[in-house]
């Protein structure tokens, strides 16, 4: 059975290879092939899943050793896989949502002549992502880690002719690289500490190492997570990443890749458990990002950017939960899954809207679309209810559990975190309501695009709506399904460990409070965008709004400090290299030339001068010899 694991990755990898090397002759069948292989991978996943359910206890974890990758003395990196409940969860999410989005893309990318290549990239992403979650050692994980980075780079920049897209892709890759630095250093630390970096041995012996080491490793892993999961301070790339085609945003930048950070932290739980300080930092990062993303989400008029902010914030929730340790791991993953459903759904909905609006992304130019694209409206609406945590829907359960866990952290920290998560919930309700209202309600504010085409909104084709509907189902029922009878807890506990944290206040109170802030947030949004008409051109807005529109100024910070500073640095270095380092070299040569020029003047052509030099030379010779004898 474990031999199937490799096939999970092999299927999409094959697809990528064929589609990218295949050439134009595959243009007509390419998208079908890609989708097929993604589906195949999903099927294999389901088979493995059912098989896993068949077994129990430790027997559920499968291992597959393919071959030795980098063997150098004590440094032994293998290509080997580990399939346990945690990775299983991800496999299903990735292949499932992935397949849906493949199907969606068939319709969405119909008019793009490079559709084959697009599907190639998508398959490549699936392969890399599966490698990431299936690896049984950190170096192989790193392989997948950078692999998804590459795929995301290719897909964000898919429309390369748009300079903005190319820049966004480059930015995403670079910021991720900073995170990767952390991961690679973490691996090195593990190697020097444990002499290995395979999950089993490392996580098994975290107790024996000093806490300092563990903290260091933890922080490095966190850095990596921040890069991939767009957490403060490395979040800046996610907004720009929306330059990519919408399916990409849905799959990579909402459902799967961006949650890799959460996976990493949960997977490395043992390390963090042994390093409380690191855990604290994780929690803080989560909390900050939670609010940051939410605030940004409130100010954006670009529907995808607004959703991106929301993604950031939701992942903040997950990171925060993961930072809570055994109390939170399970809930982090649970929220991750539910979020995978509804956020993917929301993005696909947004894509469907854009599809109908000549790729217009500015919500101020939408309005009243519910009549024109009912399916999209309904699915999007369900997703909306799910994410704000409307009772009974997925988000309600997963988020609520996280809030409880936050309070359960205990002490002042508990209170602070709890209130932050509550506040986050309120803001979430606000900005999602805002999106909803601006897009589907109010009067129509459409305008002709730069080519003068008046948009005439229409429902998207089946290939697009069906995935949306399926995802909508997921966003409605998944949460309840997981939460009832703590199914999800029992499922993951063997891997991540779990102990129930006792909150200082009862669960009911928490739920109640959540409901209250939720209503407040939604109401405020209705007051601002539902009751009175939305201006087509954005008002100047308050200082905070303006800051939020520019990602709370941190892009400007990047630009001034990193970009400009870097340019100055390199330019001055080029100068230094040319004038100083090279100057010394050329200078030496030149100085010899000059010396030569002066010396040759002695050769003035007068025989008598030559005689003088001979005479002088002789004199010196004699004097020197006599002196030698004298001393």
């Amino acid at each position, binding site marked *: 059975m474990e031999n199937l694991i490799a096939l999970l990755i092999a299927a999409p990898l094959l697809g990528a290879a064929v589609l990218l090397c295949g050439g134009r002759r595959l243009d007509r069948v390419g998208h079908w092939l890609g989708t097929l292989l993604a589906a195949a991978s999903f099927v294999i996943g389901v088979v493995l899943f059912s098989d896993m359910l068949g077994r129990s206890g430790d027997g559920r974890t499968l291992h597959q050793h393919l071959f030795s990758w980098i063997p150098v003395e004590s440094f032994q990196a293998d290509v080997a896989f580990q399939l346990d409940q945690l990775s299983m969860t991800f496999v299903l999410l990735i292949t499932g949502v992935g397949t849906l989005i493949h199907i969606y893309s068939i319709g969405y990318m119909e008019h793009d002549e490079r559709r084959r290549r697009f599907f190639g990239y998508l398959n490549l992403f699936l392969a890399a992502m599966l490698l990431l979650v299936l690896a049984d050692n950190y170096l192989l994980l790193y392989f997948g880690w950078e692999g998804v980075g590459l795929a995301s780079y290719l897909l964000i920049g898919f429309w390369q002719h748009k300079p903005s897209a190319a820049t966004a892709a480059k930015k995403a890759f670079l910021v991720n690289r900073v995170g990767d630095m952390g991961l690679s250093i973490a691996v090195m630390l593990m190697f020097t500490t444990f002499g290995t970096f395979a999950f089993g041995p490392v996580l098994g012996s975290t107790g024996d190492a000093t806490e300092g080491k563990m903290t260091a490793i933890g922080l490095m892993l966190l850095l990596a997570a921040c890069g991939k999961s767009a957490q403060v301070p490395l979040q800046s790339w996610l907004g720009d990443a929306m330059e990519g085609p919408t399916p990409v945003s849905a799959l990579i930048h909402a459902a799967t890749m961006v949650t890799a950070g959460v996976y990493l932290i949960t997977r490395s739980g043992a390390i963090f458990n042994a390093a409380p300080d690191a855990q604290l930092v994780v929690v803080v990062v989560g909390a900050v990002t939670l609010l940051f993303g939410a605030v940004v989400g409130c100010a954006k008029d670009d529907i995808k950017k607004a959703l991106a902010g929301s993604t950031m914030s939701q992942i903040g929730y997950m990171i925060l939960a993961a930072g809570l340790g055994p109390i939170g791991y399970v809930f982090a993953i649970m929220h991750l899954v539910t979020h995978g459903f509804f956020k993917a759904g929301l993005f696909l909905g947004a894509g469907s809207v854009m599809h109908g609006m000549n790729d217009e992304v500015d919500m101020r130019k939408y309005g009243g679309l519910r009549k024109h694209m009912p399916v999209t409206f309904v699915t999007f609406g369900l997703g909306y209810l799910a994410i704000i945590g409307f009772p009974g829907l997925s988000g309600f359960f997963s988020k609520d559990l996280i809030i409880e866990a936050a309070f359960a952290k205990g002490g002042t920290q508990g209170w602070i975190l709890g209130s932050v998560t509550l506040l986050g919930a309120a803001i979430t309700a606000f900005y999602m309501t805002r999106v909803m209202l601006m897009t589907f309600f109010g009067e129509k504010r459409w305008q002709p695009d730069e080519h003068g085409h008046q948009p005439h909104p229409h429902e998207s084709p089946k290939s697009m709506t069906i995935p949306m509907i399926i995802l909508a189902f997921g966003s409605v029922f998944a949460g309840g399904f997981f939460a009832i009878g703590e199914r999800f807890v029992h499922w993951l506990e063997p891997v991540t460990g779990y102990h129930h944290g006792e909150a200082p206040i009862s669960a009911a109170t928490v739920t109640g409070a959540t409901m209250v802030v939720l209503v407040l947030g939604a109401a405020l949004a209705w007051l601002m965008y539902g009751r009175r008409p939305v201006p087509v051109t954005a008002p100047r807005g308050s200082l905070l709004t303006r800051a939020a529109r520019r990602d709370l100024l941190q892009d400007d910070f990047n630009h001034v400090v990193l970009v400009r500073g870097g340019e100055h640095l390199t330019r001055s270095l080029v100068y230094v290299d040319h004038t100083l380092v090279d100057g010394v070299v050329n200078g030496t040569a030149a100085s010899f030339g000059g010396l030569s020029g002066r010396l*040759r*003047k002695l*050769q*003035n*052509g*007068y*025989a*008598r001068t030559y*005689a*003088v030099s001979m*005479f002088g030379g002789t004199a010196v010779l004699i004097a020197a010899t006599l002196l030698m004898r004298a001393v």
Partner: protein
Amino acid sequence: MNPVYYLYLASLLFTIGAAGVLIRRNAIVVFMCVELMLNACNLAFVTFSRMHGNLDGQIIAFFTMVVAAAEVVVGLAIIVSVFRSRHSASVDDASLMKL
């Protein structure tokens, strides 16, 4: 009489000759100064021969004279040909090649 004086004289002559080579312009004169130096050498040889009581020095003096004569032949030939082509026997005029 102490033969050392002859040595002093010899070195004096030699120095005069050398100085002449350094300061005089006319090629012939310069050449004569060289001859003077050679003769200074001869004087030294003879003196030493006298001191040591063997005749090598004197014989060498003869050889030197012969050599000097040969030099005169070659030297004058060259100098004269230069003079004919430049109408000047000044050493400093012969400075086409320099640097």
